């Protein structure tokens, strides 16, 4: 499931949600970093891979709604 996390310094991380705990420390896999764009232009992301975002630096979390349900099911059953 894709997560889009905005951090306190304005950067946006998009990656696959892997793990969290009660302090909202989130681990994302295959993560890419997007810089805050003031003028709306989308910049090339920087590939980061596996990252841990400390809960205290999270401003907002969004999930991607376009996920195909069948593949999601398969993911869980495996």
């Amino acid at each position, binding site marked *: *499931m894709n997560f889009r996390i905005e951090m306190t310094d304005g950067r946006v991380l998009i990656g696959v949600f*892997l793990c969290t*705990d*009660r302090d909202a420390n989130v681990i994302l896999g295959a993560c890419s970093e997007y810089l*805050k764009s003031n003028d709306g232009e989308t910049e090339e992301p*920087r590939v980061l891979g596996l990252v841990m975002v*400390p809960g205290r630096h999270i401003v907002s979390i969004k999930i991607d*709604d376009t996920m195909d349900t069948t593949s999601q099911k398969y993911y*869980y059953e495996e």
Partner: protein
Amino acid sequence: MADSDYFYDGDGAMESLPASPEVTYNWVDITSDFFKYIQDLKLGELLHDGHLFGLFEAMSAIEMMDPKMDAGMLCNRGNPKPLNFPQAVACGKLKIDDLEPSELIGIIDATMACIVSWLEGHSLAQTVFTNLYLHQPHSIVNKTLKAYCIAVYKLLDCIRDCINKALVFEEEDFLPMSYGYRLGSNPQMGSTYDASLEVSEQKCIAMLREQEEDLNKKARSFDDDDANNLWLALAARIRFTRMIYQALLVITKRDSQSGADCVALLNGCSEMMKIIIKTAGKGTQPVENSDSPNPMGFEPMINQRLLPPTFPRYTRIKPRAEALQYFDELVTRLRHAWKITSCTNFHTALDFFMDFSRQRSCILSRSALQLLYLSPSPASTASSAMAAPGQPRPHHPFVEILRESIKSFVNPPALTPKSPAGCTPQARELVENFLVRCVRPFAVLLQVCGHNRARQRDKLALLLDEFAALQEEAESVDALVGGGVVGGTGAGRSCFGTWLLYHVLRVMIAYLLAGLELELYSVHEYHYIFWYLYEFLYGWLVSALGRAEALSGEAAPRDTKRGARRHKKRARPHAREGLMCQVLQNMCGGYYKALVAFKLQGKIRQPACAFDSEAVRYKHRFAPLYENPVILYLGGCKHFQQARTVLETITTPDQEVTDLLKVAKTNFVVLKLLAGGHKRDSTAPPEFDFSVHRHFPIIKLV
């Protein structure tokens, strides 16, 4: 973190709405739900999505917003986005025309500082390519700067080529990655490769020459002394760039068309460096407390987003004065390395390599030395040494070097053109095969000498394995071609063996001494390190040298009278080396005895024996010298062979003798097979078959 691996299969907060087949994301904000529901987790409890993730992965994640791990934080700090070339030109921060000579000197000196930082192991993106001028050199109007920037590209290419060819670098020495920077295509510009922007070596050199002349003309047209100095200082920098580029081209591409005399070029570089260092203050200087190496033209952060997601390595560009000093010394080192081209003898060359390494030379000069001695390089010689079976033997110039080395060291009759031993085709074939087999280990030995000091020790240990296999071959060559010599003393003539032993001993000694240099041994271990050097290695080396002298002397007197006179002149070619060995042997003996005495008097702190065992330490220290199954198999083989030879002398063999003979013969063959690598990777234990003899089993491999 907790060890309770609790799998949470998602509740309302995690379930997504029915999917719509869109390519773009459809983000749904879950911030408040997310923060609400995670409160249900216990302290330390982890919520996993799926089963593909464990604690191990959790540990290897990069922690965001941690300045030590998060390279992206740096680009974001303060947030004035670094300007790229066109932006900086547009807003007037970057002059591409009408530059003052002092500005040009500042840019060139700062670029040199960046090159030095790169050569010290930093990434190209964070050093040289923070220079914005290098992003679009063809857009620069100022001809001097344009020529210089293009030349820097060519120079970087040449340096990288040299280092890559020599293959003596490790990740701590040098980063070969160029992050897509190429003349004619640059990642910052997002431009694709444009071949028309490539510049040939000749063109580049011609451009620099033209600038040199122009600048010298300008220098002459100004009467004012100070200004005069500035143009001349600039001309010296351009001239230096051209000459170091040409010199490196000669070193890297031995067939290069630049057709110049490398020594003259390097001497010229040294001359220019004197002027450059003297005039370093004439250029614009970096602003104090700034990360930028020059006020204009450099953006330390410009490539931050090109860096891999590893821990950010903050790159501090070498201060200018130190960088220029580095270049000056680099030229001196290259001039010294050039002297290898006059080392005709392999032994002298090897000594030169070892000596060069001891001076802790930089990666570029170490690489240059490799390329100067063997073309294309020892590394490629080593990797191409082995011909595929059935193919004709590959011919290497290195074979001739080794042949000369053996000739001058022990002068074996088999290598003398008119000797009876060298005549039979079989003997000749054997010797040639041996020489070809020597190519790889000896080329690797030269390559190892090129590596940085800290890496050499492990590589020497690996090399000992290869030498061990070679030792066996040397002995069989000696047995076949050494024995039948007229006037030879039979078993005593082990020419090839002596030559090889000499080198093996040197490698062993280098291995043990490297441990001292790298401070790997604890003081209470010193006594056996020195004992071993004193008692064995140096002693053996002295006797190997003595034997070599005897062997080469033995062959000489058979020459004509003139030959005998020559023999007298070079009476003891290894005298000096032998003496040095004796000196070192005595030094080691001195340490050894002193250390044992210290130990007896309780002057050296010993580790608590419960946690330590000298036997374990000893084994560990000497492992590569001993723990070589091939050597042991061969040793065992010899014993069985010896037993067999003695048994065969018994004229009337009884059953006991016949049985033993059978056992010895079989075991000899089995060990020989094992030494040759038969079933090397099998872990099945051998069987001991007592059916032939009650005490002495036949070793069987299953």
